[in-house]
């Protein structure tokens, strides 16, 4: 097997293992830490896909900021202890797990992705650097500048909204 494929399988095992551990754990803290493993292996995937800047952003924003926010809220609300699981909807876990196994197998088996195995165009390895991303994002001839500014407004609204929601009522 090619080294790239071996690396892919190792990372995929880590990633899916982290996700399965997150879904099956009843302890929110353990769940969050498993999700960090999943996010870090996804960042490694982005490096193998020549998206170095996105990989760094994934580590900083997802595995860093967002998961710290999750852990902070879990511990602020004192939810670290696993809660008692009520057996009210016992058919749902089994049914959804079966669907989750069948869905990717159907996608892969029926050849939905089969037309995508051609060679990658040359020059793809230059795409993910900070310079390339920045030149595309801020280019006046490409349509990404207005969405980028709209994103800044969205983040401002989110900051104000989070403060208003979480503030103690006077």
């Amino acid at each position, binding site marked *: 097997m090619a080294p790239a494929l071996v690396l892919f399988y190792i990372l995929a095992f880590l990633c899916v293992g982290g*996700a399965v551990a997150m879904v099956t754990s009843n302890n929110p803290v353990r769940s969050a830490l498993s999700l960090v493993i999943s996010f870090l292996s996804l960042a490694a995937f982005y490096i*193998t896909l020549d998206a170095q800047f996105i990989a760094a952003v994934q580590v900083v924003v997802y595995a860093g900021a*967002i998961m710290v926010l999750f852990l902070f809220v879990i511990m602020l609300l004192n939810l670290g202890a696993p809660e008692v699981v009520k057996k009210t909807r016992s058919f749902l876990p089994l049914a959804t797990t079966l669907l989750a196994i069948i869905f990717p197998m159907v996608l892969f088996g029926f050849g939905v992705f089969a037309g995508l195995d051609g060679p990658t165009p040359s*020059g793809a390895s230059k795409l993910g650097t900070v310079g*390339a991303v920045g030149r595309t994002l801020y280019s006046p001839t490409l349509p990404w500048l207005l969405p980028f500014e709209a994103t800044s407004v*969205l983040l401002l609204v989110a900051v104000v909204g*989070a403060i208003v*929601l979480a503030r103690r009522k006077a």
Partner: protein
Amino acid sequence: MVPTSYYLTLSAILFSLGVVGVITKRNPIQIFMCIELMLNAANLTFIAIGHHLGQMNGQIYTIFSLAVAAAEVSVGLGIIITIFRSRETINVDEVNILKS
């Protein structure tokens, strides 16, 4: 060279796991984490397809998706804290005042 279809299948697996979590979990924080997993699966699809086509657009979409995810998490966790202050519980089976 790993085929693009492998990345897409992995993304489908991650998305399905996220759906399973959203449906089966009763803790809204864990439901949020599963939504994050689904967003990440979509990001992986964007980047894999962008790499396959040799285009920048997949990575740009991922940046926007990331910003939206960060905004969503901050507001969502604020809502969870507010619900916990007023109800002393955040179990989604017990928080049902919108259901008449």
